[in-house]
């Protein structure tokens, strides 16, 4: 397994509130010391509640924002120098599908021109060749010629998302970061779009980073999962292991919150209590401890590091010992 993308100790802090005299402006870390690796050809899902920093992490991985600390390596090269030539060339290799599909298309330009545009930007091929490639990719994402001269407003949400996917895929990138690619779509359309993404991934050997809050969706696409809570990764490992037997109490709470349609398979719910604390003023120690049903005094003072537990990495002091307890709760 070779890592295509490596991020180490990635931190992105924002100024919060106004600057006061003689006091620095308060800052908070939206992403706080994240280490992440994405292997070539795999799909890594980043999951977490809204506000946990997963979208910010996405922009850092893409090089669309500069990290406050740490760095991102893509295929051994640093992803940085926003707007520079090297950065621009890297745009051909890393593409993004944003959350707000409708908004990420120009409302006045026919979709054919918008899908061809990446080729225009990077001056790939002659005009006829660009048009041919555009026709091919539009066909591949299932948009017929009768739609090509329409503007995005005249298309359905699912069709718009296909346009966005075609535009990202036409450069034949090595990696695509999808930020909540289907959360704005109907469930029925979600399945189609996810199938399209997986098909493209297979055909083009894509590496994907899939950011989502929707575990039901993630389950369909992810090879590996990283669970984020308040800017930190609390659990990461193969999707199968994490979903089957979550070790971190937060992952357990997240999974328990996913409705299970089969009453016979209903498990004991491990619920987090209360609201996530403000990232402005994160609790000391383990950031999850105020909501954690298993917290021990050590959780309040000592930040847990990611450590291997049961075939994945978990940042929890009590995780190993939890297994037994879960079994006990389930039995009750």
């Amino acid at each position, binding site marked *: 397994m070779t890592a295509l993308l490596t991020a180490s100790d990635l931190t992105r802090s924002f100024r919060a509130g106004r600057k006061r005299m003689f006091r620095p402006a308060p800052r908070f870390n939206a992403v706080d010391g994240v280490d992440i690796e994405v292997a070539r050809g795999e799909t890594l899902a980043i999951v977490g509640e809204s506000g946990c920093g997963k979208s910010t992490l996405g922009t850092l991985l*893409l090089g*669309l924002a500069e990290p406050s600390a740490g760095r991102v390596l893509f295929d051994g090269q640093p992803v940085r120098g926003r707007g520079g030539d090297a*950065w*621009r*060339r*890297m*745009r*051909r290799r890393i*593409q*993004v599908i*944003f959350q*707000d599909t*409708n*908004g*990420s*298309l*120009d*409302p*006045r*330009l*026919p979709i*054919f021109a918008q899908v061809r*545009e*990446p080729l225009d*930007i*990077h001056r790939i091929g002659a005009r006829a060749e660009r*048009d041919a490639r555009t*026709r*091919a990719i*539009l*066909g*591949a994402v299932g948009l017929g*010629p*009768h739609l*090509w*001269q329409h*503007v995005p407003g005249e298309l359905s949400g699912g069709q718009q998302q296909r346009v*966005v996917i075609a*535009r990202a895929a036409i*450069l034949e990138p090595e990696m695509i970061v999808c930020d909540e690619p289907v959360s704005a779509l109907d469930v029925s359309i979600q399945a189609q779009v996810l199938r399209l993404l997986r098909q493209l991934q297979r055909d083009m050997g894509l590496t994907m980073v899939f950011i989502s809050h929707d575990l039901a969706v993630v389950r369909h696409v992810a090879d590996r999962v990283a669970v984020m809570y308040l800017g930190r990764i609390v659990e990461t490992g193969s999707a199968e292991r994490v979903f089957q037997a979550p070790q971190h109490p937060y992952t357990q709470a997240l999974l328990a919150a996913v409705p299970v349609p089969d009453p016979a398979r209903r498990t004991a719910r491990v619920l987090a209590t209360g609201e996530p604390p403000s990232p402005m003023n994160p609790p000391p120690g383990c950031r999850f401890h105020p909501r954690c049903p298993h917290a021990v005094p050590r959780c309040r003072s000592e930040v847990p590091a990611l450590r291997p537990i049961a075939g994945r990495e978990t940042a929890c002091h009590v995780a190993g010992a939890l297994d037994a307890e879960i079994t006990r709760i389930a039995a009750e």
Partner: protein
Amino acid sequence: MTIAAAPAPSRPLTHRLGLGGLRRVPAVVLIAFAVLALALVVTLFAQFMMPYDYDAMNLRARLTPPLPWEGSNPAHPLGTDKLGRDVLSRLLIATQTSIALALLGTIIGAVLGTVLGFLAAHFRGIVDEVISALVDFQAAMPYFIIALAVLAFMGNSIVVFLFLMAIYGWEKYARITRGLVLSAREEGYARAQHALGAGPLRTYGIHILPNIVSPLIVQLTVNFPDTILFETSLSFLGLGVRPPLTSLGQMLGDGRDYLVTAWWLAVVPGLTIFLVTLAMSIVGDFLRTHLDPSLQD
């Protein structure tokens, strides 16, 4: 993957400008369009339309009244002035001068203001502050006084005059453009362009400009009558277009002395100014209601 079909024909321009929904155009707007069309024809072809040389004097036919009035001469349908020059010929040339100057001035001002607005929004920081300060300065200045001062110091040439017209009103475009670009840059399509690796010129030219052009066109139509009035005011004061060249304001200023004895000398150019600016305002209003998305539906 073989898909042979070529892209369907391009959409009509009216559709892309958001004018696709136009059905009924009010009569008054049609009349205004007709007046402007006539003014445009005059501007382009005045030299071929005038019955006499606009500067040809005929001292024996001085102050002939216009047609239906007593003592009029069918050879001079709008009468003659104090030097016996044909008023119709002079009016055509004056209209040409005034509209050409106002049009050029408006376009130069619009381009200048729009470019500065883009620069301010793109670079922010010190560039933005300097441009915004210039905008405030321009907006706060009594521009007429400045124009008089410039004409007094620099002397009056057509280049200086055109320059003054172009500077007149640029700050409105700059202010509008800056605000629109700042908000458009936060739109998803602009962010997506950035992520695709597009340079700022491409993003601004191909995507942001077409999306913000409607308010700018509206501003253009609002500004144009102002610019005509500005030109005529300066020429009226004798600081604009110099004889032998003539403009509507200059004709008006010349006719002022003869208001009692030869009213047509002032009324004919005055009426023309009134009609052209009114028509432009009506068309501007019409375009505003149809181009401004916030006023639609």
